């Protein structure tokens, strides 16, 4: 069968990137779905915050990054961590608090960190990582390094003080940092509109920092990718920070404990019609990519998730000696002589 043209006319993204973005979204979808299954089996410990439905945001921003760019995530950070190339096994292992986990079970699902992949941490105190991302960007600026710091957070985070301090700080110092608000309409269980003075929690605040209001369709990875590219380019060129609000929706509850009864009737179904992976499959076909290629990605990813699951189930618990390790830089915890 003849191959359709890889690039449609006027397309700026291209096949290779699109396939990468597709695979990333499938990785997130499958890994998160597996995480959900595993905690139904009581194999995921503690809490867990899934990004099912929000995959396009993570995929778009990560795919547009260069190696060396830095991600700062929240407790809802599995997606962003996977999107930077961290292995599914390590992520699931951490959720299962096994020794093969990304932090060997010491951090848990809310704190995924992989320095070698540029995932500079997942922070579970709302808003705290926005100033931290500013600091990383300040380092880049000071050292003349060209990496961008990208900071992901939710709509609810726009109402905490640290958000405000970070935005002002980033602008006055013209830092190469990109703030990404994933507006999924809810904080934990409370609709964001009930507790926010403006309609667009991030975009309507941009002007308070002299920034442009940017709203992106968070269900369309291409749109996200383009917005990310523009913001990174601006940051790398010394143009300072951006604040981008992505409209999206989470399919699962806020965390493992949440049955999400607060949803408006029909809301979930309406959003599922614009499922990011569905949208992206159509996009790929539209740009001439074969169904087979797509199916192959799906199969491959599922296989990786299955393998990872087995490895995690077989992995040992972390050893007790980890408890007193790495409090301080000497590797130990001695607060006295």
């Amino acid at each position, binding site marked *: 069968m003849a191959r359709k043209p890889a690039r449609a006319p006027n397309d700026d993204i291209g096949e290779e990137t699109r396939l990468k973005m597709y695979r990333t979204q499938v990785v997130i979808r499958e890994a998160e779905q597996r995480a959900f299954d595993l905690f139904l089996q009581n194999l995921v410990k503690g809490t867990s915050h899934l990004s099912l439905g929000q995959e396009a945001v993570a995929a778009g921003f990560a795919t547009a990054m260069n190696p060396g760019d830095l991600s700062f995530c929240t407790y809802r950070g599995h997606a962003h961590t996977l999107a930077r190339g961290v292995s599914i096994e390590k992520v699931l292992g951490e959720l299962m*608090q096994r020794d093969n986990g990304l932090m060997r079970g010491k951090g*848990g699902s809310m704190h995924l960190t992989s320095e070698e992949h540029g995932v500079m941490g997942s922070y*579970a105190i*709302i*808003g705290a990582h926005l100033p931290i991302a500013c600091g990383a960007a300040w380092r880049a600026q000071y050292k003349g390094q060209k990496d961008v710091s990208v900071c992901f957070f939710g709509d609810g985070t726009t109402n905490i003080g640290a958000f405000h301090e970070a935005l002002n700080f980033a602008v006055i110092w013209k830092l190469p940092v990109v703030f990404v608000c994933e507006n999924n309409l809810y*904080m934990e269980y409370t609709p964001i509109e009930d507790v926010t003075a403006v309609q667009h929690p991030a975009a309507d605040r941009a002007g308070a920092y002299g920034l442009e209001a940017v709203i992106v369709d968070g269900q369309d990875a291409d749109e996200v990718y383009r917005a990310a590219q523009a913001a990174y380019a601006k940051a790398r060129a010394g143009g300072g920070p951006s604040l981008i609000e992505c409209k999206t929706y989470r399919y699962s509850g806020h965390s493992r404990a949440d049955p999400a009864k607060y949803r408006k009737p029909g809301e979930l179904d309406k959003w599922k019609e614009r499922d990011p992976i569905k949208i992206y499959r159509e996009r790929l076909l539209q740009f001439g990519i074969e169904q087979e290629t797509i199916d192959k990605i799906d199969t491959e990813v599922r296989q990786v998730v299955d393998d990872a699951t087995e490895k995690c189930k077989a992995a040992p*618990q972390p050893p007790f000696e980890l*408890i007193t390790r790495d*409090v301080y830089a000497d590797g130990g915890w001695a607060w006295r002589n």
Partner: protein
Amino acid sequence: MAELTYRDAVTRGIAQEMKRDPDVVFLGEDIAAAGGVFKTTVGLLEEFGPLRVRDTPISEQAILGAAMGAAMTGLKPIAEIMFSDFIAVCFNYLANEFSKHRYISNGQTKCPLVVRTANGGGARFGAQHSQSVENWCMMIPGLKVVAPSSPTDVVGLLAASVRDPDPVIFLEHKSLYPIKGEVPDGEIVDTIGTAKILRSGRDATITALALMVPRALEAAEKLKEEHGIDCEVIDVRSLVPLDTQTILGSVGRTHRLFTVEENPRLCGWGAEIVSIVADEAFYDLDGPPVRITTPHLPLPASDVLEDATIPSVDRIVDRVKRSLNA
């Protein structure tokens, strides 16, 4: 008498006080429509309406600041801070504002409010959602600090906290929410600043708080059964005011002191109690006072690691036994 969970006791305590006094209002994140992330406030919105039970944005400073301003001017607010670890983002209100304003104003103003929060470990939530922060609160002059260990104490001490004319930090232990206990019918009002001797004993005094109380009691049983060591167990219940008389009295009888603290070691509440006993009951002591604490490190998330970090029944047994046999 009805059997109630610690979780439902929280709801009952709040409801009891809101029924009694229309000036009692309640605010926090996800507490109204959703009934709280720990389901400790289910039904309160329906019972008391949206003017008295209010969901807030994720703005802990606004929550505690608003509680303070309302308290200063005539309400009796209960504010929920979802996890006690988040006190760190609104610590200024505890450390500098509602704790000090009466003093600063030379007695002109008042701040009768309660900050309820889910404290402590055991849920495998990791370093930022599992801390025991009783010492963060105890060290601030002007606060009162309460931490119940049973459903009945939850109701009674919560009522006492709401009626107290001073700011009270009310530490609920998240690992105790599912425990059950018999709770008397009718209104329950306890007294802040009173410890309780939950088990009498002659060989040693063990002071404990919140989740450490059932563990200390279980350890005392084991110590008795397996080693013939007879421990008195005190549920401290209130760190400020501190019932030093009960503690000193007990040490005067047992001549040995152990503290079982969930907060990490340095500057924990046990250090304060030890320093009081060592000073005022030095000649009563037959051996060193010993602190059994979470080690001075952040909490690991993993269940096996977390369980090995927070004081366990076995650790208490072992430490007391070794110390008394030394």
